[in-house]
């Protein structure tokens, strides 16, 4: 036990484990495991001292903690609109600043709103049924796999419904109040 110098033995001995667990101990030697030692110089396949630079075809935002734009970068979803302005501003703060990450999260939420309107204008509006995949509930034992299974997530799953419905309720409520206000003035 923990109160004397001897380590309590709660495990079977190694011979029994070798006999009963497939592959037991094949990587027992710590010094013969991959990633050992921690910072081992190895042949990486790179045949350059510093990589060629990918052309920067449009201004690319970067962390203030980088000395320069790294030679290779993703070009998916360039900054644009109000969300882009928020994100561009966020990149004025270092990664150490909470403001940096909170502004990026704010930009993400604004991006979603902007994209909803853009999709409607493009004639391909978002479909809350197909995009949430909620129809899979009916084919995959929604009740059976949730209840009587001791799952901890059942306690907070109703919050998902509230978060999903909140924007629609807000729009419906706002529209109702607006209509009521207009009617009241007439």
């Amino acid at each position, binding site marked *: 036990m923990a109160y004397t110098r001897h380590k309590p033995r709660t495990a079977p001995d190694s011979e029994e*484990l070798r006999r009963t*667990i497939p592959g037991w101990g094949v990587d027992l030697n710590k010094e013969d495991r991959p990633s050992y030692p921690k910072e081992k110089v190895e042949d990486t396949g790179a045949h350059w001292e510093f990589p060629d630079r990918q052309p920067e075809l449009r201004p690319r935002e970067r*962390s203030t903690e980088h000395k320069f734009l*790294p030679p*290779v*970068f993703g070009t998916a979803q360039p900054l644009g609109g109000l969300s882009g302005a928020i994100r561009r501003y966020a990149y004025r703060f270092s990664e150490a600043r909470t403001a940096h*990450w909170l502004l990026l999260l704010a930009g993400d939420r604004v991006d979603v709103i902007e994209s909803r309107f853009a999709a409607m204008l493009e004639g391909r509006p978002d479909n809350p049924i197909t995009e*949430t995949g909620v129809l899979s509930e009916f084919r*995959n034992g929604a009740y059976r796999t949730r209840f009587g299974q001791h799952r901890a997530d059942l306690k907070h799953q109703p919050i998902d419904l509230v978060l999903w419905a909140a924007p629609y309720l807000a729009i419906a409520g706002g529209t109702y109040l607006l209509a009521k206000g207009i009617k009241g003035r007439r």
Partner: protein
Amino acid sequence: MRAMVYRGPGRIRVEEKDIPSIEHPNDAIVRVTCAAICGSDLHLYHGMIPDLRVGHTFGHEFVGVVHEVGPSVQHLKVGDRVLVPFNISCGSCFFCARGLYGNCHNVNPNATAIGGIYGYSHSAGGYDGGQAEFVRVPFADVGPSKIPEWMDEEDAVMLTDACPTGYFGAQLGEIREGDVVVVFGAGPVGLFAAKSSWLMGAGRVIVVDHVDYRLDFARTFAHAETVNFTQVNDIVQWVKETTEFLGADVCIEAVGSEADGAFFQHVTSAKLKLQGGSPVALNWCIDSVRKGGTVSVVGAFGPLFSAVKFGDAMNKGLTIRTNQCPVKRQWPRLFEHVKNGVLKPSAIVTHRIPLDDIAEGYHLMSNKLDGCTKPLVIPTS
């Protein structure tokens, strides 16, 4: 091409996108033949990772066929079947040169704390991922490897993240012969961490989760003892009792941002995004491990702060080891284990979903419906 795109928290759809093009001389374009949804994709799906832009294509676990190569590519040619590690790495920066492929400094302009990852937001470099028909693969001479003739495609796709990360989690634990290892999380990474702990000589392997079907699988696949934390009064107390009040020698956190088990922690992080991730499982690791023990963290957390019980970690003299798995460094040994039958990574695959039905696949995985542990995504072309 057809590609999965993010439309907002909890919402995705499949759209037509342009086939990616060569943007750097060492790029390759890969036609994806099989991809997977990772548990860490759910953190994106739930809107927890900052700078996640609408239109982004997820997917950092994929295999495929080389469709096009840039002028400086020497090690791959069109038609090669390849598996691609989830890390994007240049092979020549300070970190890559030391084998830290998950910490490359030359591929992510948006953050220095994170390397480049396919389809994992702009915080991980702004690269579209592999849940699509085609994907751009930077540094084709460094990351990808040809799939050996003898290797099954589903084994190969599991070797791009889940299996190496689980193995790496066990390795970070610095397991010694006879150690008691507790793995928190019975998802794909936790299952591989449990299985790998035996390979490194663990004396007992205990898997903790709250989903019964995953614990059932952990008993057969990983030969582990299991405990459902909702069925014991206090999981930390339970670990202490089963180890004669010493505590586990090694605890492995294989859950990440959306850990369940403490309502306030989960809701403030997963629902309200006020923390970088729910530290429930991490705190359980810190409290369950013995003094002087090791906590290995391979669960993914966002960049914001989390309410971690660091005082306990300090007072107990713990070693906390963590990193994004340097996948390529694990491959030679893992290829050997797969070839010799020591590991069968594809055994954890539960669902195969056409790309066009991917929204339902995410809902299935997120809500743990129909016994879902690991869904594969099959592009339609």
